[in-house]
């Protein structure tokens, strides 16, 4: 009995633009909190695997270790948190 408003998205001046894609958000999160770099540091020559980094993050956060960017993992990445990296680099 009421149609949902057709939302229009506005860019607000002074807003720190955060509308990244999910994968951009995930990559920036994994790097910022040390999950991605660590693997490189351990000397593995193989290509850094986002999936492994995701598993490490999921383990730290007590999430199911799927290695996938699933819904709960994405939500965790959007949750307010402390700025100290989870993996010291």
């Amino acid at each position, binding site marked *: 009995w009421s149609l949902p*408003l057709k*939302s*229009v*998205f*506005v860019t*607000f*001046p*002074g*807003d*720190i633009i*955060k*509308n990244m894609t999910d994968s951009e958000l995930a990559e920036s999160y994994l790097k910022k*909190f040390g999950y991605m770099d660590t693997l490189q540091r351990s000397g593995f020559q193989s290509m850094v695997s986002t999936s492994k980094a995701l598993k490490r993050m999921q*383990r*730290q*956060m*007590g999430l199911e270790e799927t290695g996938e960017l699933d819904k709960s993992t994405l939500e*965790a990445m959007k*949750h*307010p*948190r*402390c*700025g*100290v990296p*989870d993996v*010291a680099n």
Partner: protein
Amino acid sequence: YKTFDGDLKWDSHDVTYRILNYSPDIQSSLTDDAFARAFKVWSDVTPLTFTRLFDGTADIMISFGKADHGDPYPFDGKDGLLAHAYPPGKGVQGDAHFDDDEYWTLGTGPVVKTLYGNADGAMCHFPFTFEGKSYSTCTTDGRPDNLPWCATTADYSTDQKYGFCPSELLYTFGGNADGAKCVFPFIFLGETYDSCTTEGRSDGYRWCATTDNFDRDVKYGFCPSRDTAVTGGNSEGEPCHFPFEFLGKTYDSCTSEGRGDGKLWCSTTASYDDDKKWGFCPDQGYSLFLVAAHEFGHALGLDHSNIRDALMYPMYSYVEDFSLHEDDIEGIQYLYGPKTGPTAFPPQPNTPTTVPYPDPDNTDPTNEPRPTEPTTTTRSVDPTKDACKFTKFDAITVIEGELHFFKDGHYWKTSSSSDGGPTGPFSISERWPVLPAVIDSAFEDLLSRKLYFFSGTRFWVYTGQNVLGPRSIEKLGLPNSIQKVEGALQRGRGKVLLFSGENFWRLDVKGQNIDRGYPKYTDAVFGGIPNDAHDVFQYKGHVYFCRDRFYWRMNSRRQVDRVGYVKYDLLKC
């Protein structure tokens, strides 16, 4: 739990902290309290003690900042990163930074401590009713002077209890105007401003002049945010303007329209379409206490935990009845050990005299039985005593320009002219043979050069090697209810203040009697010092009140201008 590589930790249990600035979101007294409680979370389960310094460099320097705030780890606007801290060490290590683009509260919405009014600083009660209308924020209704106020009970009409809310019309904080309120309009770089502004600043903090001309007087302060103020956006601190127009539609409350993240915002002018002025609406905010307790865990050496309910878990979640998780306790005790001292042991009836001294720590000699109350019995001399190991002295005073520290039959001296450590121990009985081992206080009468020593209810007067006493302190006009004189403070010509408990008396040295109008309450005259100081003396133009390891220094204007360690600043260990 996890610790940082190399188990970084503070090597001393006496950790100091200093609050460098404040957020406009929450009153500074509430911020002080939140930080003190956050430190107490950790001191309750370890031997750690936290002392606040008001100047100089502390172990943990605490500050608020936005986006790029000077270290390599910028914050990111509202939400996202809330704060960060560095593991123990020098320089920036050990410091804690809080993102001031966040809305800082105690986790359940605006926290407003009232000023003035008749509610003695009580908190606002939201909602409250006033003349039949319900208010969930401060209001200026009913006031011709436009000052925001609130009721501190649910119903103003029946209880009549109220107070004023933070506003730039009442006070400012920081700056150089000692908290004076804003003056509107004021002139800045030739322009006239009739409200707070961020002009001239790159950090986005709102400020105002506290005279009508900043260009001439250069007097300013930061504006506290009102509880209705928006955060973030481009109008931080301004209140929402209702109704406002957005994309041709009128809104008379906050909305998430136009945003993909669902966050509530409002315009701070009548038309967002015309002015493009906006900010996020006040929400529950983040608990400064909880976030601070987490960051202080880092500053003490704890890394992130993967236990979801632990305080050191990296994601924020609000907890009403906070208590430290077992994982956090194990982690911090791995670094510093459990808490020792009376609070760690259940009280024992008929406690033997060897009960630990009220505030023992690892510098206290443990082989001596200690009485539960100081007494004036004599003790055997032990030349190996190191003054830097003591946490408390029987008496500290200045004799012939040198600081003297008395303890258990010995005394040490530090020279005011050199920075070397203490010399001694010297034997009290060798220099003043008739004196007992425990001296509660002493002073040198500057006119006659006589030395007065107090122990328990007796006193002695030395003139060179001649001595008069012991005599009862009642002879000086002190009441017989006094157990001991804890401090003596020379005041001008021939007057000395004698401190005991929460009172002090003024002795006329020449007349050997107490002036009329005494005793007075110590904290009524010397505000801001502990009322159970056990040493009081004058040194280099400052008055020192000592308690435990610490001193509170008071300048000639009777302001506490420094708190520090007896051991480092006076004894120069």
